[in-house]
């Protein structure tokens, strides 16, 4: 059974749609950084916010009036993927569509606010408005309600590779359910100073304005954003391979496990391009070992120096960008590439390839990959 990418969507710090984000990336643009200050202590972090105007249409929907940022972002990306596929949500389409939503930290802003109220004002002061929005599946539920999808709606949680697990989960649904025509896979994430603070305790968040990939591994910059991929049974770009992923139990073994995992994927021929998850952390070194050993002449594009690390959204955004790279026969240039990997593509250029590999090494011990092919 072949499964195809029918549409891609996104809302990122660089653009309100996948197409506009893509254009900006191809022009070498970098998402504007802002400073967010830790409210507990004297640390400051750069982050890449999504401008409010990018989600203004989603915010006008009554269902999302009080929702968390992650729900607004997810809805915007989901509708963009439908539009990219040339589809308008309608009952006859929606009843044969499933949703799989990927989340990492979820509604961290409302969660922090709620817990802050509990700690500082007492449990009896906790807001009943905030709590429901802190639940991991809130964003997926809102999107299902907006689309009128009344059956299969799953939320998967994990690290920054969770989007690829969600995509594989969606392929399982399509393989098992003949009454499903398509599945909307969405990844979304909001950013908060608490998130950056927490990652800084593991030296994974930098305090600098830029971060280098395949270089010094000095930490990443967090971003807001969402991305969506609509997959179905017809199309021109095939999702030629996906996997439930692989875990590793320590950083020491991560590179060896990753190499073994990629070897087991049995990628028949070398891909023509790789969209990588490099984000300025230890993950870069793991990917570098894999690429050097198994795909030593394949150009690598890393989008995160331009758009930031949007955790639950980032892997789906990588897939969306790989799809657009195959569709437009272009590969954007990676910004801020270090010297440790020679195959990083640093200038936007045309290509004639038909096969793309999306690689993801998550910060919390998960590795995954998918392959796309022009059919």
């Amino acid at each position: 059974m072949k499964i195809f990418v029918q549409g891609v969507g996104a809302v990122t710090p660089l653009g309100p749609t996948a197409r506009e984000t893509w254009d900006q990336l191809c022009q070498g643009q970098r998402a504007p950084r802002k400073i967010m200050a830790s409210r507990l202590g004297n640390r400051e972090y750069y982050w890449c916010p999504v401008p409010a105007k990018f989600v203004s249409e989603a915010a006008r929907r009554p269902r999302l009036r009080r929702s968390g940022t992650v729900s607004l972002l997810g809805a915007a990306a989901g509708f963009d993927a439908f539009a990219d596929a040339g589809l308008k949500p309608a009952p006859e389409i929606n009843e044969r569509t499933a949703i799989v939503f990927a989340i990492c930290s979820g509604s961290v802003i409302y969660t922090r606010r709620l817990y802050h109220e509990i700690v500082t004002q007492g449990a009896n002061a906790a807001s009943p408005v905030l709590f429901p929005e802190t639940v991991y599946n809130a964003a997926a539920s809102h999107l299902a309600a907006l689309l009128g999808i009344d059956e299969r709606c799953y939320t998967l949680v994990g690290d920054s590779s969770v989007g690829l697990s969600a995509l594989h989960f969606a392929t399982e649904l399509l393989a098992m359910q003949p009454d499903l025509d398509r599945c909307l896979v969405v990844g979304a994430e909001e950013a908060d100073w608490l998130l950056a603070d927490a990652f800084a305790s593991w030296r994974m968040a930098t305090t600098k304005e830029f971060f280098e990939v395949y270089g010094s591994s000095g930490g990443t910059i967090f971003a807001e954003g969402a991305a969506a991929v609509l997959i179905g049974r017809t199309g021109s770009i095939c999702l030629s391979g996906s996997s439930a992923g692989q875990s590793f139990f320590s950083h020491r073994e991560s590179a060896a496990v990753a190499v073994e995992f990629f070897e087991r994927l049995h990628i028949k021929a070398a891909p023509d391009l790789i969209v990588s998850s490099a984000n300025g952390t230890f993950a870069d070194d793991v990917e570098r070992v894999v690429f050097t050993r198994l795909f030593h002449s394949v150009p690598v594009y890393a989008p995160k120096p331009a758009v930031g690390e949007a955790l639950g959204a980032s892997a789906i955004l990588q897939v969306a960008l790989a799809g657009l790279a195959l569709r437009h026969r272009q590969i954007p240039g990676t910004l801020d590439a270090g010297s440790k990997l020679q195959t990083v593509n640093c200038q936007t250029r045309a290509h004639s390839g038909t096969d793309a590999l999306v690689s993801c090494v998550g910060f919390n011990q998960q590795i995954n990959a998918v392959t796309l092919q022009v059919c």
Partner: protein
Amino acid sequence: MSMVSAIRRVFVTGLGIVSPLGPDSDSNLQSLLCARDAVTTVGSFDVSRTRCKTAGQIPDEWMKDAFPRRRSSSRLHRSARMVAMALHEARESAKSPCPELLIVGTTSGGMSYGELYYRRLLATHSRKGLARLVGNYMPQKPVLDALNANGLRIPTQIVANACSSGSNAIGHGFELVRSGLRGCVACGGYDPICELVFVGFDSLQAATSEKIRPFDRERSGMVLGEGASFLILESEESTTARGATALAEVVGYGMANDTYHLTQPHPSGIGPKLAMQRALRSGGIDPEEIDYVNAHGTATIFNDATEGSAISELLDDVHVSSTKSMMGHALGAAGAIEAAFCVLALREQFLPPNINFVEPDPIWKFKVVANASRWTPLRFALSNSIGFGGANATLILRRV
């Protein structure tokens, strides 16, 4: 991946439970049979300013040997212990199967470490010593720790569909095995109790200061619980080839999203009704064949009203109980624990009780298994889960 054409039988060959009712499936069975009330006063955080003060809690003493006593294991979240114990028991009882995938439902993961992180940061403005809390609070981390402890290196899928998560994890595992995409999977759920969620339900006035009394006319709300449970699901071919013993058969799974409100179920009961109808259809089972329903039964006004209407309408005078009355609502673990209870009920041929039950609500036709377990022949058991966001899931199991 090929399109699925054949349908295979799916057996439960292993079972593991850690709940306030006991640290293993035998002790949980005894607690169900003797209608034990495991709800006690919360001791792990301050409940002086909440309406509800009780929950079903697992004593840490039960979990002290879940990991080898090393410095590194002392840093792990207690939910890792629950998961490791339940997974270990499930694998042992299945006589060392080789699951290809672990599917886990949860809602809050190691959230209490996130709470501790925030409290310490607020108090000291220092991050010294907090890295371990960050590293262990994410929902996937306790699962990875448990896999490591059990010597398993298999992919995981962590489903977070609110209080339906555990049922959805088992339902997805069932569909993977039934379709032949997988031969053997481990699936279930876990959730430890934490302050944020406890206070959250209290703020919604969903939690009660009294005893939890599902389906009682005077019910006043839920209490929280915690726990972990895993089932080993295996195809008939795999079960036979390994010489494993089938404890029960999973025959149906349905899910529905009522697309109504984030916390309130649609008053018509359309969510649970659709989920039950879809599960019956997926198993090719007639409603009158269902002998027992392990209801979601949180004892909130809204949940029991809508679920009660749906059961009454669809399954008429079936036997119904909510085992949450004994141990509270274990959220992402609830569906998995209750599916495991259904396996025990089918294997031992008894109806688990719905304790604290005083007065029936005359609007429902079904028979509440009031206050004591009963021996009775059972062939099919149905388990409902209903979660925030309108997430409904139903599993149907058959005696083997």
